[in-house]
């Protein structure tokens, strides 16, 4: 394959990694019935903390762990507010996202465009020599590999393990899971924390990988993108990952043609992913899908429906309480 194309694809995979981590994290959280709307601010704040600790100690591992902890703590705040205090997840998450971003901007002033952290580049022996695939997937940094693992692991956990079945059940009908002996709220804590940790990892992936310096401008906004992609991906890890790479790909195209076209066109192209997503959402929602299916042979209907099935977890954003206990 053309070398420039391979390089572009490798770049897309790399740039997409933090968003993949955040979006997969949110997918897990929402599958359990909790909306963590603090994603965007959480991403920025954990990126800053990871950067500060990472550069301070000179250790990528410590920096990454610090980023993960920040995401995890913020997610736990959402969980406590929702489960113990019965506050609205949307309201709490929204306030947290604004708070965390502003906090990061404030705390980050001394670090603005300061030191450059060395990118953690880790080519994998043997695999990196496979033609085309090698340079795209196996000549990357640590975080990109982690993003691959996150996609696969989330899919495997959700659809191949018993615990994943339980996870889907508590997001769909917590009463039924409870009747089957599941401690719904404990599980929700767990998966909100796991999801938040992945968001924190995504933040660390920014400042210790993709943009090896501290600057919020490259980060803020990507959390909202991840949230949108979770919906676009219908809460399926593989589809979510596909969505991320689609957006990252379109963005890369825009960056590449930037010099040759007028700025208005660039802005329009920037809006393209959203238009595409909106279009897809229209398409997969009831009536349009039926009309689309009408032109296709009936044999293809079930698989297409399965692929495009995009229904939010039925109990998303609700509070679970055992009845009759006050």
């Amino acid at each position: 394959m053309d070398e420039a194309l391979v390089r572009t694809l490798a770049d897309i995979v790399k740039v997409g990694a933090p968003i993949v981590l955040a979006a997969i994290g949110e997918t897990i959280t929402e599958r359990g019935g909790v909306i963590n709307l603090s994603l965007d601010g959480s991403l920025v704040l954990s990126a800053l903390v990871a950067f500060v600790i990472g550069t301070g100690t000179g250790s990528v591992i410590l920096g990454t762990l610090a980023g993960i902890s920040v995401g995890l703590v913020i997610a736990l705040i959402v969980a406590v507010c929702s489960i113990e205090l019965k506050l609205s997840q949307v309201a709490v998450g929204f306030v947290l996202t604004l708070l965390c971003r502003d906090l990061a901007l404030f705390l980050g002033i001394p670090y603005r465009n300061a030191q450059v952290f060395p990118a953690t580049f880790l080519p994998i022996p043997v695999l990196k020599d496979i033609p085309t695939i090698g340079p795209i997937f196996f000549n990357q940094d640590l975080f990109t590999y982690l993003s691959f693992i996150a996609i696969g692991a989330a899919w495997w956990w959700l659809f191949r393990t018993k615990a994943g079945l339980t996870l889907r059940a508590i997001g769909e009908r917590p009463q039924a899971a409870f009747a089957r002996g599941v401690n719904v709220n404990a599980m929700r804590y767990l998966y909100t924390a796991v999801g938040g940790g992945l968001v924190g990892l995504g933040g660390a992936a920014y400042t210790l990988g993709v943009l090896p310096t501290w600057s919020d401008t490259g980060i803020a906004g990507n959390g909202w993108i991840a949230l949108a992609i979770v919906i676009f991906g219908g809460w399926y890890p593989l589809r979510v990952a596909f969505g991320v790479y689609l957006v990252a790909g379109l963005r890369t195209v825009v960056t590449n043609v930037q010099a040759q076209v007028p700025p208005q066109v660039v802005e329009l192209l920037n809006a393209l992913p959203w238009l595409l997503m909106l279009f897809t959402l229209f398409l997969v929602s009831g009536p349009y899908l039926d009309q689309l299916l009408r032109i296709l042979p009936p044999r293809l209907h079930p698989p297409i429906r399965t692929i495009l099935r995009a229904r939010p977890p039925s109990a998303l954003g609700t509070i679970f309480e055992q009845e009759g206990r006050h």
Partner: protein
Amino acid sequence: MHVELKDITKTFGTLRANDSLTLSFAEGRIYALLGENGAGKSTLMKILSGYQPPDSGTIFIDGRAVTFQTPADALQCGIGMLHQDPLDVPNLTVLDNFMLGRREGLLPKRKAARQALTAHATRLGFEIDPFRYVDSLTIGERQQLEIVRLLSLGARLLILDEPTTGISAEQKHMLFSALKRLAAEEGMTVILVSHKLEDVAALCQEVYVLRGGKLVGHRHMPTPIDELVTLMFGQSLPRPTRGAHNLGAEILRAESVSLTARRLTVRDLSLSVRSGEVIGLAGLDGSGQSDFLRACAGLQPLNGGRILIAGVPIHGKGYAELLRMGVAYAPSGRLEEGLVDGLTLSEHFALTTNNGLWINWRAANALAARQIARYNIRGAPHSPIQTLSGGNQQRTLIALLPENLRLLLLEDPTRGLDVESTAWVWQQLLARRDQGAAILFTSPDLDEIVTYSDRVLVFCEGRATLVEDLDDSARNPAERLGELIGGKRT
């Protein structure tokens, strides 16, 4: 397994839902728990199955006192409950639902689970496809899945809370014979909560009757139904009659209507209804009866044909507009569609009187109090709707119907109501009819359809057939209707 409840008391605020109840259930016997709406049956069964803790009192299993923190605890002791609305996860497959909550390592043993599912289902005479999504099953099939699941987890006492509402006669027959076999051959204890006294007579060996949270009777079957009714309500009830009445002008007209139901398409449905007429819509669950009702209310699009209300085509009109034309629709999903979870009774009545910007709370409270008295609802104006018993929610739904209606579209209007409330609701509905309203209603209960309908529209395999001469035929009308629904021609 012998289960005893001793001095069980449960209060909600000042209400004593269960008042020092002592009952005992022996191995291998089938019991009925009877009582009017709000008598405390579901509360007691939820306590027995671990969904709610009692305020005081003890549960003994084979003489040993037990306490349950969760339903899973109760199931571990062999007590399983089947809820009226089966407590499963609709967006998962049958097999996933079956496996959910089994404790066996990280990876699911799909093959073993599938075999267990099929084995238990076959034992009971049920046929369940493991790979179907639960949301594509009928209520009856979902119940079967739950029973199979509870049995496979070792349930020795099975509680069924109003299991026969919403399932077909055939499914009921299958359910009952499975339960009888389980009791006789495997020593299973069964407790049936039901308002259908014919079902109780067909299935149960002993009967406990509750009234106002207290135990008022314990009988061995056979016991005359009149005696049971007297125990339940403190008086015997006259059999309902329809009475003669006059028909007015045509109010509803359906011309070659075709519409999509859940699993099939109903074609070429034509019907003309005059005011003062009561039309029952009969058919197996999901055959298109409910969809036709919704279409008449402007809530579901037609594939073809048209519907006219008082000569005006309703195409393109929303429900709000139809409501102004005197059409009202009451769905059977009480808390899902008809009532608003979390709002009080007063707030519900305030919602219906939507003139002006401000809520007139004094008027709304007064209206609520008036309707509570008139419709005999157990609850106060400030009670949140979800704390009312099922029967009282249904009464509220009827009480919310506006006055001066010309066409009432009712989906299973007496779902979950006791005998007295059913008779009472119909008395209200027939009073509306006497004022000139036409009524279209669905019901899974053929006796109800036969008793109250002037004509019956039978939905079967995509066809809708009008039956006009139910009473004239020499045969038992309900039986004949049952055959038509099942697809037999007479």
